[in-house]
Protein backbone atom coordinates (compact mmCIF):
# COMPACT_ATOMS: atom_id res chain seq x y z
CA UNK A 1 0.00 0.00 0.00
CA UNK A 2 1.29 3.47 -0.86
CA UNK A 3 2.00 5.85 1.97
CA UNK A 4 -1.00 8.19 2.26
CA UNK A 5 1.43 11.06 2.84
CA UNK A 6 2.65 10.58 -0.74
CA UNK A 7 -0.95 10.97 -1.93
CA UNK A 8 -1.24 14.06 0.30
CA UNK A 9 1.90 15.57 -1.24
CA UNK A 10 0.75 14.81 -4.79
CA UNK A 11 -2.69 16.29 -4.14
CA UNK A 12 -1.12 19.36 -2.53
CA UNK A 13 1.31 19.91 -5.41
CA UNK A 14 -1.35 19.47 -8.08
CA UNK A 15 -3.80 21.78 -6.33
CA UNK A 16 -1.13 24.51 -6.00
CA UNK A 17 -0.50 24.39 -9.76
CA UNK A 18 -4.26 24.32 -10.45
CA UNK A 19 -4.81 27.29 -8.12
CA UNK A 20 -2.03 29.27 -9.81
CA UNK A 21 -3.74 28.68 -13.18
CA UNK A 22 -7.12 29.61 -11.68
CA UNK A 23 -5.77 32.88 -10.22
CA UNK A 24 -4.42 33.87 -13.63
CA UNK A 25 -7.43 32.84 -15.68
CA UNK A 26 -10.41 33.87 -13.54
CA UNK A 27 -12.12 37.04 -14.86
CA UNK A 28 -13.43 38.29 -11.53
CA UNK A 29 -10.70 40.19 -9.68
CA UNK A 30 -12.21 39.57 -6.25
CA UNK A 31 -12.29 35.82 -6.87
CA UNK A 32 -8.67 36.07 -8.02
CA UNK A 33 -7.71 37.67 -4.69
CA UNK A 34 -9.49 35.01 -2.62
CA UNK A 35 -7.91 32.27 -4.73
CA UNK A 36 -4.50 33.88 -4.26
CA UNK A 37 -4.95 33.90 -0.47
CA UNK A 38 -5.83 30.20 -0.61
CA UNK A 39 -2.81 29.66 -2.89
CA UNK A 40 -0.63 31.20 -0.17
CA UNK A 41 -2.21 28.96 2.45
CA UNK A 42 -1.52 25.80 0.44
CA UNK A 43 2.03 26.89 -0.36
CA UNK A 44 2.64 27.33 3.38
CA UNK A 45 1.54 23.69 3.77
CA UNK A 46 3.87 22.72 0.91
CA UNK A 47 6.82 24.40 2.64
CA UNK A 48 5.93 22.44 5.77
CA UNK A 49 6.00 19.20 3.78
CA UNK A 50 9.42 20.19 2.41
CA UNK A 51 10.59 20.43 6.07
CA UNK A 52 11.12 24.19 5.79
CA UNK A 53 9.12 25.55 8.75
CA UNK A 54 10.96 28.90 8.55
CA UNK A 55 9.64 29.59 5.07
CA UNK A 56 6.23 28.22 6.05
CA UNK A 57 6.10 30.69 8.94
CA UNK A 58 6.99 33.60 6.67
CA UNK A 59 4.43 32.48 4.08
CA UNK A 60 1.76 32.07 6.77
CA UNK A 61 2.44 35.48 8.32
CA UNK A 62 2.73 37.39 5.04
CA UNK A 63 0.18 35.35 3.08
CA UNK A 64 -2.67 35.38 5.60
CA UNK A 65 -1.86 38.65 7.34
CA UNK A 66 -0.63 41.13 4.78
CA UNK A 67 -1.06 40.01 1.16
CA UNK A 68 -4.84 39.50 1.19
CA UNK A 69 -5.50 42.84 2.87
CA UNK A 70 -3.04 44.61 0.56
CA UNK A 71 -4.68 43.17 -2.57
CA UNK A 72 -8.19 44.01 -1.32
CA UNK A 73 -7.06 47.55 -0.66
CA UNK A 74 -5.62 47.73 -4.19
CA UNK A 75 -8.92 46.51 -5.67
CA UNK A 76 -10.76 49.13 -3.62
CA UNK A 77 -8.39 51.79 -4.92
CA UNK A 78 -8.83 50.55 -8.51
CA UNK A 79 -12.59 50.79 -8.17
CA UNK A 80 -12.27 54.31 -6.82
CA UNK A 81 -10.04 55.34 -9.71
CA UNK A 82 -12.34 53.83 -12.34
CA UNK A 83 -15.42 55.29 -10.65
CA UNK A 84 -17.15 51.95 -10.02
CA UNK A 85 -17.17 52.20 -6.23
CA UNK A 86 -20.93 52.72 -5.91
CA UNK A 87 -21.96 49.97 -8.28
CA UNK A 88 -23.00 46.88 -6.33
CA UNK A 89 -21.61 44.42 -8.87
CA UNK A 90 -18.35 46.35 -9.08
CA UNK A 91 -16.54 43.91 -6.76
CA UNK A 92 -16.45 41.83 -9.92
CA UNK A 93 -14.50 44.48 -11.73
CA UNK A 94 -12.56 43.29 -14.75
CA UNK A 95 -9.67 45.31 -16.20
CA UNK A 96 -11.01 48.37 -17.97
CA UNK A 97 -8.50 48.74 -20.78
CA UNK A 98 -7.11 45.54 -22.32
CA UNK A 99 -3.35 45.11 -22.23
CA UNK A 100 -1.83 45.71 -25.71
CA UNK A 101 -0.78 42.57 -27.55
CA UNK A 102 2.96 43.46 -27.90
CA UNK A 103 3.20 43.91 -24.12
CA UNK A 104 1.57 40.52 -23.63
CA UNK A 105 4.01 38.87 -26.03
CA UNK A 106 7.06 40.49 -24.41
CA UNK A 107 5.81 39.35 -21.00
CA UNK A 108 5.21 35.84 -22.32
CA UNK A 109 8.72 35.77 -23.79
CA UNK A 110 10.29 36.78 -20.46
CA UNK A 111 8.22 34.19 -18.57
CA UNK A 112 9.29 31.58 -21.10
CA UNK A 113 12.95 32.50 -20.60
CA UNK A 114 12.64 32.24 -16.82
CA UNK A 115 10.86 28.89 -17.10
CA UNK A 116 13.58 27.66 -19.47
CA UNK A 117 16.33 28.82 -17.11
CA UNK A 118 14.65 27.12 -14.16
CA UNK A 119 14.21 23.91 -16.14
CA UNK A 120 17.89 23.89 -17.15
CA UNK A 121 18.99 24.61 -13.56
CA UNK A 122 16.70 21.86 -12.25
CA UNK A 123 17.92 19.28 -14.77
CA UNK A 124 21.59 20.22 -14.29
CA UNK A 125 21.43 19.99 -10.49
CA UNK A 126 22.77 16.75 -9.03
CA UNK A 127 19.87 14.52 -7.93
CA UNK A 128 21.44 13.55 -4.64
CA UNK A 129 23.91 16.16 -3.53
CA UNK A 130 25.45 17.01 -0.20
CA UNK A 131 23.93 20.51 -0.34
CA UNK A 132 25.33 23.04 2.05
CA UNK A 133 24.20 21.25 5.23
CA UNK A 134 27.69 20.07 6.11
CA UNK A 135 29.31 23.44 5.43
CA UNK A 136 26.71 25.24 7.55
CA UNK A 137 26.95 22.69 10.37
CA UNK A 138 30.72 23.10 10.40
CA UNK A 139 30.52 26.89 10.63
CA UNK A 140 27.70 26.94 13.20
CA UNK A 141 29.94 27.46 16.28
CA UNK A 142 31.27 30.66 14.71
CA UNK A 143 27.81 32.10 14.06
CA UNK A 144 26.71 33.09 17.53
CA UNK A 145 23.24 31.51 17.21
CA UNK A 146 21.87 27.95 17.43
CA UNK A 147 19.48 27.91 14.48
CA UNK A 148 21.14 27.21 11.09
CA UNK A 149 18.62 29.29 9.08
CA UNK A 150 19.17 32.36 11.26
CA UNK A 151 22.93 31.82 11.07
CA UNK A 152 22.78 31.80 7.26
CA UNK A 153 20.40 34.75 7.00
CA UNK A 154 22.10 37.08 9.47
CA UNK A 155 25.69 35.94 9.50
CA UNK A 156 26.96 33.87 6.57
CA UNK A 157 24.75 35.52 3.95
CA UNK A 158 23.78 38.71 5.78
CA UNK A 159 24.38 40.70 2.60
CA UNK A 160 21.29 39.12 0.94
CA UNK A 161 19.13 39.88 3.95
CA UNK A 162 20.27 43.50 3.99
CA UNK A 163 19.24 43.77 0.33
CA UNK A 164 15.76 42.40 1.15
CA UNK A 165 15.32 45.06 3.83
CA UNK A 166 16.45 47.70 1.33
CA UNK A 167 13.83 46.48 -1.16
CA UNK A 168 11.08 47.10 1.40
CA UNK A 169 12.50 50.55 2.12
CA UNK A 170 12.55 51.37 -1.60
CA UNK A 171 8.94 50.22 -1.93
CA UNK A 172 7.67 52.46 0.85
CA UNK A 173 9.64 55.45 -0.48
CA UNK A 174 8.06 54.93 -3.90
CA UNK A 175 4.56 54.66 -2.44
CA UNK A 176 4.99 57.82 -0.36
CA UNK A 177 6.21 59.68 -3.44
CA UNK A 178 3.11 58.78 -5.40
CA UNK A 179 0.38 58.91 -2.78
CA UNK A 180 -0.14 61.81 -0.43
CA UNK A 181 -2.93 63.07 1.73
CA UNK A 182 -4.91 62.17 4.81
CA UNK A 183 -7.54 59.52 4.71
CA UNK A 184 -11.01 60.87 5.40
CA UNK A 185 -13.12 57.75 5.87
CA UNK A 186 -15.04 57.64 9.17
CA UNK A 187 -14.38 54.86 11.67
CA UNK A 188 -16.20 51.71 10.55
CA UNK A 189 -18.97 50.29 12.72
CA UNK A 190 -17.87 46.75 13.41
CA UNK A 191 -19.91 46.13 16.55
CA UNK A 192 -19.18 45.05 20.12
CA UNK A 193 -18.13 41.54 19.16
CA UNK A 194 -15.26 42.98 17.15
CA UNK A 195 -14.28 45.31 20.00
CA UNK A 196 -14.02 42.38 22.38
CA UNK A 197 -12.08 40.32 19.87
CA UNK A 198 -9.66 43.18 19.20
CA UNK A 199 -8.99 43.62 22.91
CA UNK A 200 -8.15 39.94 23.19
CA UNK A 201 -6.39 39.27 19.90
CA UNK A 202 -4.27 42.38 19.31
CA UNK A 203 -2.12 41.94 22.45
CA UNK A 204 -1.87 38.21 21.70
CA UNK A 205 -0.61 38.95 18.16
CA UNK A 206 2.01 41.32 19.60
CA UNK A 207 3.17 38.59 22.01
CA UNK A 208 3.39 35.97 19.24
CA UNK A 209 5.22 38.37 16.90
CA UNK A 210 7.80 39.15 19.58
CA UNK A 211 8.07 35.45 20.45
CA UNK A 212 8.80 34.59 16.80
CA UNK A 213 11.57 37.19 16.75
CA UNK A 214 13.06 35.89 20.00
CA UNK A 215 12.82 32.19 19.18
CA UNK A 216 14.62 32.81 15.85
CA UNK A 217 17.99 32.36 17.57
CA UNK A 218 17.40 28.65 18.22
CA UNK A 219 14.30 27.55 16.27
CA UNK A 220 12.26 28.57 13.19
CA UNK A 221 11.32 32.24 13.43
CA UNK A 222 13.07 35.54 12.99
CA UNK A 223 12.81 39.13 11.87
CA UNK A 224 10.70 38.69 8.74
CA UNK A 225 8.20 36.36 10.40
CA UNK A 226 7.93 38.46 13.55
CA UNK A 227 7.77 41.69 11.54
CA UNK A 228 4.98 40.41 9.30
CA UNK A 229 2.96 39.23 12.33
CA UNK A 230 3.42 42.61 14.04
CA UNK A 231 2.52 44.38 10.79
CA UNK A 232 -0.93 42.77 10.87
CA UNK A 233 -1.52 44.46 14.23
CA UNK A 234 -0.85 47.71 12.39
CA UNK A 235 -3.25 46.66 9.62
CA UNK A 236 -6.03 45.90 12.09
CA UNK A 237 -5.46 49.18 13.94
CA UNK A 238 -5.57 51.12 10.67
CA UNK A 239 -8.63 49.26 9.37
CA UNK A 240 -10.69 49.73 12.52
CA UNK A 241 -9.31 53.28 12.85
CA UNK A 242 -8.15 52.69 16.40
CA UNK A 243 -5.08 54.47 15.07
CA UNK A 244 -5.38 57.31 12.56
CA UNK A 245 -2.11 58.53 10.97
CA UNK A 246 -1.47 62.25 11.43
CA UNK A 247 0.97 64.50 9.56
CA UNK A 248 2.92 64.87 12.82
CA UNK A 249 3.67 61.12 12.84
CA UNK A 250 5.64 61.26 9.60
CA UNK A 251 8.99 61.79 11.31
CA UNK A 252 8.58 58.75 13.57
CA UNK A 253 7.47 56.62 10.63
CA UNK A 254 10.45 57.70 8.53
CA UNK A 255 12.80 56.91 11.40
CA UNK A 256 11.22 53.45 11.73
CA UNK A 257 11.55 52.82 7.97
CA UNK A 258 15.32 53.42 7.92
CA UNK A 259 16.10 52.03 11.39
CA UNK A 260 16.65 48.43 10.21
CA UNK A 261 18.64 49.28 7.09
CA UNK A 262 20.67 51.92 8.90
CA UNK A 263 21.70 49.82 11.88
CA UNK A 264 22.28 46.74 9.72
CA UNK A 265 24.68 48.65 7.42
CA UNK A 266 26.31 50.48 10.34
CA UNK A 267 27.07 47.22 12.17
CA UNK A 268 28.34 45.62 8.96
CA UNK A 269 30.76 48.49 8.38
CA UNK A 270 31.81 48.97 12.02
CA UNK A 271 32.87 45.34 12.52
CA UNK A 272 34.92 45.46 9.32
CA UNK A 273 37.93 47.24 10.82
CA UNK A 274 41.09 45.43 11.96
CA UNK A 275 41.51 42.67 9.41
CA UNK A 276 37.85 41.64 9.25
CA UNK A 277 35.52 41.98 6.28
CA UNK A 278 32.01 43.47 6.44
CA UNK A 279 29.47 41.30 8.35
CA UNK A 280 32.28 39.34 10.05
CA UNK A 281 31.02 39.79 13.60
CA UNK A 282 33.50 39.21 16.45
CA UNK A 283 32.48 35.90 18.00
CA UNK A 284 32.00 37.12 21.56
CA UNK A 285 29.52 39.78 20.40
CA UNK A 286 27.93 37.85 17.52
CA UNK A 287 24.72 36.91 19.31
CA UNK A 288 24.20 40.40 20.74
CA UNK A 289 24.78 42.02 17.37
CA UNK A 290 22.48 39.57 15.58
CA UNK A 291 19.71 40.14 18.13
CA UNK A 292 20.17 43.91 17.88
CA UNK A 293 19.94 43.82 14.08
CA UNK A 294 16.99 41.42 14.12
CA UNK A 295 15.07 43.46 16.67
CA UNK A 296 15.44 46.74 14.80
CA UNK A 297 14.83 45.10 11.40
CA UNK A 298 11.63 43.62 12.85
CA UNK A 299 10.40 47.09 13.83
CA UNK A 300 11.28 48.42 10.37
CA UNK A 301 9.52 45.57 8.58
CA UNK A 302 6.39 45.87 10.72
CA UNK A 303 6.09 49.64 10.29
CA UNK A 304 6.95 49.50 6.58
CA UNK A 305 4.36 46.81 5.79
CA UNK A 306 1.67 48.67 7.74
CA UNK A 307 2.61 51.91 5.95
CA UNK A 308 2.43 50.13 2.59
CA UNK A 309 -1.07 49.02 3.49
CA UNK A 310 -2.09 52.52 4.51
CA UNK A 311 -0.53 53.47 1.22
CA UNK A 312 -0.03 57.22 1.45
CA UNK A 313 2.13 59.73 3.19
CA UNK A 314 0.04 61.57 5.77
CA UNK A 315 0.24 65.18 4.56
CA UNK A 316 -2.41 67.80 5.08
CA UNK A 317 -3.85 68.60 1.66
CA UNK A 318 -5.64 71.67 0.38
CA UNK A 319 -9.43 71.55 0.10
CA UNK A 320 -9.37 71.02 -3.69
CA UNK A 321 -7.05 68.04 -3.39
CA UNK A 322 -9.13 66.13 -0.84
CA UNK A 323 -10.20 62.64 -1.72
CA UNK A 324 -12.11 60.15 0.35
CA UNK A 325 -11.75 56.75 -1.19
CA UNK A 326 -10.17 55.11 1.82
Amino acid at each position, binding site marked *: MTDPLVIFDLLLGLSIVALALAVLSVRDLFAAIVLFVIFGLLSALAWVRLSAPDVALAEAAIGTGVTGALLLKTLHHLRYVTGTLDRPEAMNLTPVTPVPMPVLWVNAAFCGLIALGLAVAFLEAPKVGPGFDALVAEAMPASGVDHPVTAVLLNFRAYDTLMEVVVLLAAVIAVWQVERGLSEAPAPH*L*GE*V*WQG*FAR*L*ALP*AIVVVGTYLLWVGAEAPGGAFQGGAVLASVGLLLLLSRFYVPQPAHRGIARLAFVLGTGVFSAVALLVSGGGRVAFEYPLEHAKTLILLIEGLVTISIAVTLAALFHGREPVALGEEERRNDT
Partner: protein
Amino acid sequence: MMLESLSMILIALGTVFFIAGTVGLLRFPDIYCRLHALTKADGLGLALIALGVALLADSMGEVFRIILIWFFVAVASATCGHLIARYERRSGEGPSYD
Protein backbone atom coordinates in the same frame (compact mmCIF):
# COMPACT_ATOMS: atom_id res chain seq x y z
CA MET B 1 -2.32 2.31 23.68
CA MET B 2 -5.65 3.27 25.21
CA LEU B 3 -4.75 6.94 24.78
CA GLU B 4 -3.75 6.37 21.19
CA SER B 5 -7.03 4.76 20.15
CA LEU B 6 -8.99 7.47 21.97
CA SER B 7 -7.04 10.09 20.02
CA MET B 8 -7.69 8.23 16.75
CA ILE B 9 -11.44 8.27 17.46
CA LEU B 10 -11.41 11.99 18.33
CA ILE B 11 -9.47 12.93 15.19
CA ALA B 12 -11.81 10.84 13.00
CA LEU B 13 -14.85 12.53 14.57
CA GLY B 14 -13.30 15.94 13.99
CA THR B 15 -12.71 15.09 10.33
CA VAL B 16 -16.38 14.08 9.98
CA PHE B 17 -17.36 17.57 11.20
CA PHE B 18 -15.01 19.18 8.70
CA ILE B 19 -16.63 17.19 5.89
CA ALA B 20 -20.05 18.27 7.21
CA GLY B 21 -18.90 21.89 7.10
CA THR B 22 -17.77 21.57 3.48
CA VAL B 23 -21.02 19.83 2.48
CA GLY B 24 -22.94 22.65 4.18
CA LEU B 25 -20.87 25.25 2.32
CA LEU B 26 -21.67 23.58 -0.99
CA ARG B 27 -25.29 22.53 -0.45
CA PHE B 28 -26.99 25.11 1.80
CA PRO B 29 -29.14 27.69 -0.02
CA ASP B 30 -27.95 31.09 1.27
CA ILE B 31 -25.02 32.70 3.01
CA TYR B 32 -26.58 32.64 6.49
CA CYS B 33 -27.11 28.87 6.39
CA ARG B 34 -23.61 28.41 5.04
CA LEU B 35 -22.16 30.53 7.83
CA HIS B 36 -24.08 28.43 10.32
CA ALA B 37 -22.64 25.25 8.82
CA LEU B 38 -19.11 26.60 8.66
CA THR B 39 -18.66 28.24 12.03
CA LYS B 40 -20.18 25.40 14.02
CA ALA B 41 -18.83 22.46 12.10
CA ASP B 42 -15.38 23.99 11.92
CA GLY B 43 -15.27 24.97 15.54
CA LEU B 44 -16.29 21.54 16.73
CA GLY B 45 -14.16 19.76 14.12
CA LEU B 46 -11.05 21.66 15.10
CA ALA B 47 -11.78 21.22 18.83
CA LEU B 48 -11.99 17.43 18.42
CA ILE B 49 -8.86 17.24 16.26
CA ALA B 50 -6.96 19.51 18.66
CA LEU B 51 -7.99 17.30 21.58
CA GLY B 52 -6.91 14.19 19.68
CA VAL B 53 -3.53 15.70 18.77
CA ALA B 54 -3.03 16.97 22.35
CA LEU B 55 -3.34 13.37 23.58
CA LEU B 56 -0.44 12.44 21.27
CA ALA B 57 1.75 15.42 22.22
CA ASP B 58 5.09 14.76 23.90
CA SER B 59 5.28 17.63 26.35
CA MET B 60 2.99 19.87 28.38
CA GLY B 61 4.34 22.87 26.45
CA GLU B 62 2.92 21.44 23.22
CA VAL B 63 -0.42 20.69 24.87
CA PHE B 64 -0.58 24.27 26.12
CA ARG B 65 0.15 25.67 22.68
CA ILE B 66 -2.46 23.39 21.06
CA ILE B 67 -5.07 24.63 23.54
CA LEU B 68 -4.12 28.26 22.79
CA ILE B 69 -4.36 27.63 19.03
CA TRP B 70 -7.81 26.09 19.43
CA PHE B 71 -8.93 28.98 21.63
CA PHE B 72 -7.85 31.64 19.15
CA VAL B 73 -9.34 29.84 16.14
CA ALA B 74 -12.64 29.51 18.02
CA VAL B 75 -12.72 33.18 19.00
CA ALA B 76 -11.58 34.39 15.56
CA SER B 77 -14.01 32.22 13.63
CA ALA B 78 -16.93 33.33 15.83
CA THR B 79 -15.96 36.98 15.33
CA CYS B 80 -15.50 36.53 11.57
CA GLY B 81 -18.87 34.80 11.27
CA HIS B 82 -20.51 37.67 13.10
CA LEU B 83 -18.75 40.32 10.99
CA ILE B 84 -19.73 38.66 7.72
CA ALA B 85 -23.36 38.12 8.75
CA ARG B 86 -23.56 41.72 9.91
CA TYR B 87 -22.04 42.99 6.67
CA GLU B 88 -24.38 40.87 4.56
CA ARG B 89 -27.47 42.00 6.49
CA ARG B 90 -26.53 45.66 6.08
CA SER B 91 -25.52 45.47 2.45
CA GLY B 92 -28.09 43.17 0.91
CA GLU B 93 -31.21 41.28 1.71
CA GLY B 94 -31.72 39.70 5.12
CA PRO B 95 -32.23 35.98 5.62
CA SER B 96 -35.20 34.46 3.82
CA TYR B 97 -37.71 32.65 5.99
CA ASP B 98 -39.50 30.44 3.48
